[in-house]
């Protein structure tokens, strides 16, 4: 079946794949390693056909393990089930799964040329010579590396190597493309360039893709949906906008870049921070685990009071005139970033706060400043014992 699917002329490759990718479902999957480590807690995950799903999280959170389960390089514990479309692949080995893989280390065969690398899968599948050459040529052209066909791998730059790796992975028209931190080894500028290329490639092919990264920006740029992982569990699944604007937990907020944190209180439907009082209705994203709605019996919650964690990015707090100020701080450091200057400010919370100002704004280290919150840009988590669970139930 495999071989017949391969036997179409290469020029049609791109067109046929546009019709939609394979839907992937993981049901009740867990993963325990032989030494007893629980790498993945029970989870369900569905990846729609043609969707690009990003697995985001710090190292050791289990994102790569999920990728390896889908690849067939690891198998889930008994009871888990993985399907590609209608096909149950739970115990199918990677050789049979028809997945394309791209690695951080490129993993190109050093004893083969660029063209031989791309042709390797076709050769293994015994695709006939003429057809094979045609397909390889089409792949190299698509990745804009046709002039490198006869080069050896050690003669290529990092960006070129990753293009070869992509061409090799999609040459076999896999059911799913799995990318494991493919851009991490590249420098910042090239990373952004190749990210854009990968994005348009995935849209063009319409292939189902799963992309692992620890880089929040990369995840936002590429993902149709993002899965944020924490310690072997899924912390949140959502579109980039949802993850960014409405994180479900302090961990997610912190991980996607809301690095300023302040301690506050919630009193009578308002956020209280020293002398500052802001109505919760004005707060951009408040996860207070509303005690009345959830019928929480916790005495602290019943009175509508409790501690709160406040998270915000550099745009959550702005400098203002002294008479309009809600809070005062002292400038500790200034970094000029071109289109803006980023200030490090002490005296507002326990740790320093960063906020952005116009680069032409006259300010010096040691200056006292008055600031105002931008409630729209604040994320507030009521610190009830089960605030997260309550929030997910909503």
């Amino acid at each position, binding site marked *: 079946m*495999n071989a017949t699917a391969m036997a179409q002329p290469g020029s049609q490759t791109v067109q046929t794949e546009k019709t939609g990718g394979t839907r992937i479902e993981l049901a009740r999957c867990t993963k325990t390693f032989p030494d007893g480590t629980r790498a993945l807690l029970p989870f369900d995950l569905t990846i729609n056909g043609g969707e690009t799903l990003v697995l985001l999280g710090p190292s050791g959170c289990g994102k790569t393990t999920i990728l390896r389960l889908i*690849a067939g*390089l690891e198998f889930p514990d008994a009871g888990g089930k993985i399907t590609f479309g209608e096909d149950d692949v739970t115990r199918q*080995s*990677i*050789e*049979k*799964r*028809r*997945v*394309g*893989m791209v*690695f951080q*280390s*490129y*993993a*190109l*065969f*050093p*004893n083969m040329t660029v063209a031989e690398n791309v042709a*390797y*899968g076709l050769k*293994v*599948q015994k695709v006939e010579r003429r057809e094979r050459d045609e397909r390889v040529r089409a792949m190299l052209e698509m990745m804009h590396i046709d002039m490198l066909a006869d080069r*050896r*791998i*050690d003669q290529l730059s990092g960006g070129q*190597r990753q293009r070869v*790796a992509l061409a*090799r*992975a999609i040459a*076999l028209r896999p059911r799913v493309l799995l990318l494991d931190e493919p851009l991490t080894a590249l420098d910042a500028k090239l990373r952004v360039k190749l990210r854009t290329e990968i994005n348009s490639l995935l849209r063009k092919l319409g292939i189902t893709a799963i992309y692992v990264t620890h880089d929040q920006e990369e995840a936002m740029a590429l993902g149709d949906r993002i899965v944020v992982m924490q310690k072997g569990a899924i912390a949140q699944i959502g579109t980039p906008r949802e993850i960014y604007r409405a994180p479900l937990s302090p961990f997610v907020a912190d991980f996607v870049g809301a690095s300023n944190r302040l301690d506050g209180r919630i009193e009578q439907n308002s956020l209280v921070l020293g002398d500052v009082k802001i109505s919760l209705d004005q707060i951009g994203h408040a996860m207070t685990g509303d005690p009345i709605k959830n019928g929480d019996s916790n005495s602290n919650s019943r009175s509508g009071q409790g501690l709160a964690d406040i998270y915000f990015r550099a745009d959550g707090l702005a400098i203002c005139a002294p008479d309009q100020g809600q809070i005062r701080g002292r400038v500790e450091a200034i970094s000029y970033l071109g289109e803006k200057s980023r200030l490090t400010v002490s005296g507002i919370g326990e740790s320093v706060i960063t906020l952005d100002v116009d680069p032409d704004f006259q300010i010096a280290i040691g200056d006292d400043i008055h600031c105002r919150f931008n409630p729209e840009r604040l994320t507030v988590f009521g610190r009830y014992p089960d605030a997260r669970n309550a929030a997910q139930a909503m």
Partner: protein
Amino acid sequence: MALQNLGEGRSRPSFSRYFGVSRSAMASPATFMALMAPGVAIVAAFFLIPLVLVAMEVANGPDGWATYLVILTNARYFESLVQTLLMSAGVTVVALILCGIVGMFLVRNRFAGRSVLIGLLTLPLSFPGTVVGFMVIMLAGRQGAVGGISNALIGEKIVFAYDIAGLFIGYLYFSIPRVILAVMASAEKLDPQLEEAARSLGAPRWRVVRDVILPGLMPGLISSGAICFATAMGAFGTAFTLATDIDVLPMVIYTEFTRNANIAVAAALSIALGVITWLCLSAVRFLVGEKADVTTRGGA
């Protein structure tokens, strides 16, 4: 302003230091000769001069320079050469296969007692050939363990210490540590994701071994195989301890030299042994070396 001054102040000394370093790196001819002298002296004293003396010794024999051909014309010597070559090649191939598998396994797996096992496998490094020969006798000699067991089981003493099998085992035992260490060094550098990439493209295990693992291990296999082969060609201690009916070339040289006082022939055979070993190694390097070279440099 202040920053600029600081920057200049820093860059100037490092500039001159840079030149200082480069000047001493390009040593003057006198310094160069002085530094080379010990190396040249050692090579001359322990290699070149003895080699020339041995090579010259051949001319003093009854047949003069023609003695060099004796290894090809004399049936006994020629047979000994062929035997030695076959034995060495056999030991090398078996050692490479065994150690390739074991070395790869040891690198890819972590288990209790792993370091003890590696220690045991590399232990023969510290034994001289004579001791290895003695061990083989204890294992498979007339009073050996194998003979004792087989006698108890099937009423027949199996003894193979004194024939080609005994020598083979001795040489193999001797070669294993070097090859295993070299394979492990190559295997450490082999990216496991290369194998995963090949498998994701549908390659069955045997193709992964042929297309990915073997090319990756090739540099280590070639260098350790060469050492293994050369050592086996010249191994004397083991053969001497075991020798009854085997005529490996080093034994022949020893016999000609000490018992028959046939110094010219011994010298000719010595040079021939060296040249043939060197030729074999060069041939292997020529045949597979280029590919291996690409593999080492290409490792990302």
